[in-house]
């Protein structure tokens, strides 16, 4: 009896989902478009190397200034606008017009003097300025050392590491962020179905039959999980084949993060549905939630790019942990043996359970038939 009902409900909801063009647009087409846009804008065409255009002024050429100029020319990330030094005025002009990222004014005398760095105020705090300034510092230090005939005692050797088997590129980061986001949105927006069914009297109609509503909800959940798997596969295919993203999959952490996440965001959607009389109200709530979470959960950019005072937010909201969990399973190949993975799952679960309990309470307090 229950099996017969469940099979019927599952088949009906699969058909309904596949026939609804909106589902396809919002669950697949839209995330793919968004991902492609972000890949093109921020992916930098695959090689994300740093380059700065600079101008050099040498007001009174001398041995030191010539030596520094030669060094500057050899720094690969610096591109000189003019091979030969220009006047200070010309250089300032370019900085003001933002034709160059910085103007470097070489020392006027061979003895004690300074190297000038002139940048546009608008980009005073930019990463480019920071980088140019630190490169210049290193060069000046080298010059100082050689001026007194010394060699450096300590040097820095840098090596970048990640937990992944391979380097994680922005493409991988964005791809997994988008996968997490679209699965989460599937849950957040998907529960509009309930509002729609209530508005059209379908919930009431079903409650007049021996149909078990719990089974109906379970069947709906399974259908949404299916859609989630389709989303992951399609986005991953586009990311890997069109943008060269690399995945290192750990199936256990992926499956656990996916199922928990899909349930948690559906629970949030369920909570919104309990408060919404109309579909518009529901969509408003879901949109606000998804927008806020989208930019505060490290979907597009790492969380540490946020200002300090805002850093607390990503530590609370579930999307952060969901995206992290999906990254553990998709690019870092982290197994389920890490405590941070389980902490993320734990925080998501708390969200899910809380949303579900509040929603059930709200639903209990109003009768289905009160809505006509």
């Amino acid at each position, binding site marked *: *009896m229950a099996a*017969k*009902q469940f*099979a*019927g*409900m599952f*088949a*009906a909801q699969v*058909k*309904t989902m596949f*026939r*609804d063009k909106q589902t396809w647009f919002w669950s697949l087409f839209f995330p793919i478009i968004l991902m492609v846009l972000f890949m093109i804008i921020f992916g930098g065409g695959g090689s994300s190397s740093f380059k700065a255009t600079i101008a050099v002024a040498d007001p009174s050429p001398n041995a030191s200034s010539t030596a520094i100029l030669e060094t500057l020319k050899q720094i690969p990330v610096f591109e000189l606008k003019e091979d030969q030094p220009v006047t200070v005025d010309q250089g300032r002009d370019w900085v003001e017009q933002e034709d160059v990222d910085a103007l470097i004014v070489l020392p006027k005398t061979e003895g004690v003097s300074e190297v000038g760095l002139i940048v546009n105020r608008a980009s005073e705090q930019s990463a480019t300025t920071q980088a140019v300034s630190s490169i210049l510092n290193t060069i000046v230090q080298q010059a100082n050392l050689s001026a007194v005939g010394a060699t450096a005692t300590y040097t820095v050797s840098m090596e970048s590491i990640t937990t992944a088997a391979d380097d994680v590129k922005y493409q991988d980061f964005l791809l997994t962020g988008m996968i997490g986001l679209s699965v989460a949105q599937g849950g957040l927006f998907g529960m509009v179905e309930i509002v729609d069914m209530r508005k*059209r*009297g*379908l919930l*009431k*109609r*079903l*409650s*007049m*039959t*021996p*149909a078990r509503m719990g089974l109906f909800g379970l069947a709906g959940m399974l259908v949404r999980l299916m859609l989630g798997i389709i989303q992951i596969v399609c986005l991953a295919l586009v990311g890997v084949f069109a943008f060269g993203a690399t995945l290192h999959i750990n199936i256990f952490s992926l499956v656990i993060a996916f199922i928990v996440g899909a349930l948690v965001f559906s629970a949030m959607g369920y909570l919104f549905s309990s408060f919404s009389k109309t579909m518009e109200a529901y969509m408003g709530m879901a949109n606000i939630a998804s927008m806020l979470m989208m930019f505060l959960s490290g979907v597009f950019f790492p969380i540490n790019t946020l200002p300090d005072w805002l850093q607390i937010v990503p530590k609370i909201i579930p999307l952060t942990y969901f995206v992290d969990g999906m990254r553990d399973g998709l690019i870092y190949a982290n197994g389920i043996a890490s405590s941070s993975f389980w902490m993320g799952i734990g925080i998501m679960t708390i969200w899910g359970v809380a949303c579900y309990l509040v929603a059930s309470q709200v639903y209990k307090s109003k*009768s*289905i*038939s009160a809505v*006509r």
Partner: protein
Amino acid sequence: MPVLEVNQLRKSFGDVHAVNGISFAVEPGEIFTIIGPNGAGKTTTLEMIEGLLPPDAGDIRFGSLNWAKNGEQIKQDIGVQPQSSALFDLLTVEENLKLFATFYSHSRSAEEVMDMINLTDQRSRHVKKLSGGQKQRLAIGLAMINDPKIIFLDEPTTGLDPQARRNIWDIILKLKELGKTTILTTHYMEEAEKLSDRVCIVDQGQIVTLDTPAALIERLTMEREVRLSFLDGEAAAAETEQAARQISSVVRTEREDASLKLWSTKPEETLYELFGYTKDRGFRVEQISIREMSLEDVFIAFTGKEWRD
């Protein structure tokens, strides 16, 4: 033994007594119609009987079953077509029927139901592409998929064109032939009169009157309206009016040009006498009619309200 008994049913929403002590019993195989103006408490009454709303007071019994103890069994035994036709829009006619069939332990075949509601040709059509009448027929089809003993139809024909309405009447009469009990609410007096075995007029949460349509009309023992119109013009009508006033059963007359209206407590006798008179005088009568009393008159007489569709 009645299939459904309702006893002193009450339901209030805040200060509004939507249903205020309604009692009736429905016999097997009957078409039992509840009529009444908007807000009379029809739908609230139905929703309590269907188990959607808990009554404040009173009891509802389906034979020996009641909602508190036998909710699941009652749901298996009844079929409901709610006022707003609630259907799965993206499923086809057949898929809707088959889905609902899975809910019940016993069901009719979708094939058979589609045949009864005359939607076999539209079986593979998505519900959102059906016409209003077709959707309504499907909603009734869903109400009979479990081969229920009692079917509740809440305003099944509201908003349909006359042809679509007739199609639905045919279905309701077919259900009666199958021995099903139907509980119907409607906005259309003509429909109630044509289909019902018994009619229950509800107003302000109470039953105003309950009987067969014929008995209800008969209770209106008032005078009947008789109309005559004359080919020979105003003079003939005026002379006949004078003659009619002499007849004892004629209560009142009214004339406009060549047409005459009179109210009689014994319309057949009045006409017999009047025809004698017109024959003697050689007046040619163009049209005669005795206005039929309808449920509408019953409604007006009992509630004091104008009936509006």
